[in-house]
């Protein structure tokens, strides 16, 4: 059985950046790519050395997909990363609906900004912290880094102990937001 190429209708996608910027991309595979209603000429190449680059307006851009999970993507363009979720027109409508009805969480989790070792804990569970106050000291690559509370509130839980080794994005502290 021969499979039919779906050529007739335009295929449309919406790439939504982490800052909520939208790119409407039509027919990404075709010769007739449109981004935000403008026709663009973009080509993707794999070179013989194993690099992938985009050729656009006669300039080369080194590109790499570093992470994908379902429709969430993190890609690098010339070493700078961008995060997008890719939506079809239908899923985009759904996303908009969900975003609007999302419950505003009162809980703020502080994650480790880098892998390292907890060398000091400056607060106790139940304590009040102010935004900008240091809560932990994380040692990484021989430097001591202060971990700062991003919001004012009450320390609900401390997930680490002194001398613990943590990975990037491990949850360290849970804070319940309070109006300062």
């Amino acid at each position, binding site marked *: 059985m021969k*499979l039919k*190429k*779906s050529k007739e209708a335009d*295929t449309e*996608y919406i*790439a939504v*950046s982490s800052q909520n*910027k939208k*790119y409407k*991309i039509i027919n*990404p*595979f075709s010769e007739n*790519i449109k*981004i935000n209603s403008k026709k*663009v000429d*973009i080509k*993707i*190449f*794999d070179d013989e*050395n*194993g*690099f*992938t680059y*985009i050729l*656009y*307006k006669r*300039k080369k*851009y*080194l*590109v*790499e*997909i570093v992470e*994908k999970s379902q*429709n969430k*993507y993190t*890609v*690098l*363009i*010339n*070493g*700078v*990363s*961008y995060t*997008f979720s*890719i939506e*079809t027109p239908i899923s985009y409508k759904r996303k908009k609906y969900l975003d609007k009805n999302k419950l505003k969480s009162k809980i703020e989790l502080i994650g480790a*900004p*880098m*892998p390292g070792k907890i*060398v*000091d804990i400056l607060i106790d569970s139940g304590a009040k912290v102010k935004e900008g106050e240091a809560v932990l*000291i994380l*040692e*990484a*690559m*021989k*430097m*001591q880094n202060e971990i700062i509370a991003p919001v004012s509130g009450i320390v609900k839980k401390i997930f680490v102990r002194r001398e613990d080794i943590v990975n*990037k994005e491990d949850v360290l502290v849970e804070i319940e937001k309070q109006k300062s």
Partner: protein
Amino acid sequence: MKIKSLLIANRGEITIRICRTAKKLGIKTYGIKTSKEPNAYYLTFLDEIIDFSDSLEDIPEFLDVERIVYAAKTHKINAIHPGYGFLAESPYFAQRCEEEGIIFIGPSPQSIYKMGNKTIAKQIANSQKVPLLKGSHGNLSSPKETREIAGKIGYPVILKAAAGGGGRGMRIVEKSSQIEKMYKLASTEAEKAFNDSSVFIEKYVRNPKHIEFQIIGDKHGNIIHLGERECSVQRKHQKLIEESPSPALDENLRKTMGDAAINIAMATKYYSAGTVEFLLDDDNKFYFMEMNTRIQVEHSVSEEITGLDIIELQIKIAQGEELEIKQKDIKMKGWAIECRINAEDVQAGFSPYLGLIDKVQYPRSKNIRIDTGITDSSVVTPYFDSMIAKLIVHGENREKAISNSLNALNKFWIKGIKTTIPFCKSVLMHKKFKSGDFNTSFIEKEMRLLYHQDKDDEMLAAYLATFDFAAALETDRTTHIDFEQGKNISPWVLNKRLRSL
């Protein structure tokens, strides 16, 4: 004594750099392999590898004085070059080498001790009438004492580790209420990094320029300088871009500061390579900060403008040879800029970016020098410094050196990890940097965005992600059979397959 064999007690790019000179001089090189990076690139440059993989000690391999000395003895190695690590500034290590009849490539243990102790170093500078900042002129015993002295000098003050360097154990104190906390932070950090918790304070100069002089001296009392380096592009006291000469100096100031640097070195009967660091304030007044008694990361920019091989000079001096060049022979030709390529995520506050480097491709040109410690499939581990390579670019003048550097950075491709390349681009394109009028607050105060972004970058990123996502959807629709069984397949291969359906 002629050095015939050399143990390089270091890793990464500096080991490769030292190997290059050793080969030129016909010296056999030995190096150390650790279990932390058994397949490291530097190992391929050595003539002989000494395996420390079985080390069960708590001390990191490259700090294990006794084992390194023992290894040199059992392999009958003439000399040890410590690179720019901790051992390079350990008077104890230099002393142990001397005791065992091994040539230590560096200054005498006495010089290392005196200049390494910041309090003594200041006294020496003072005796040579080199300007100093107001400070405690000695180690502090408590936060209370710190507060008293700080009150006399006037805020802001800076707490520094007496045995410190590289920004570790340094804290700026803006007001007296911060003293307790900052004292604790600085002294614990100093204890961790240098095994010595003593700290001192001095007046903190806001937004100074960081200017340093490369010194080279022999064992016969000859000392010259190879000009200055401008190292004001710093983040948290870590240098990121260095250049030589400095746009801030004219011939007069260069001579005055150069002479001051030589006088300090003379006062400790200094030999080998060293660096005298100064702060330069808004009124072009300079102050002695410290002396580093070792080869430095940024020595390469001085080499590029003077045409000298500093490692070669170090080795020859260690052999007892007299310097063939005099101060008047030193001519600074053109301009050189060094960009440090660190495995760091600039977008996440310069946090270390660990992992596998799939591919690396270097720019090539007559005016480009790359000192690298990595190759395809190298791994960035959490055990060592994040610097993976240095890009050193020369130009006939500063403007040319900047534009040549930018061209080189655009062709410096790395796949698999994030690096400081986008940061370096953004600095080199900055108006303030280009003007030459910048100081150590440049990154914090002047840079709006810490990485360079072309205006179309985000759109292209959106396209790339959409392309990959759509390709995956398309396969689902057209085939219904997952031939790849969920395996990650390149979207471009996929695209070709789709087109040929």
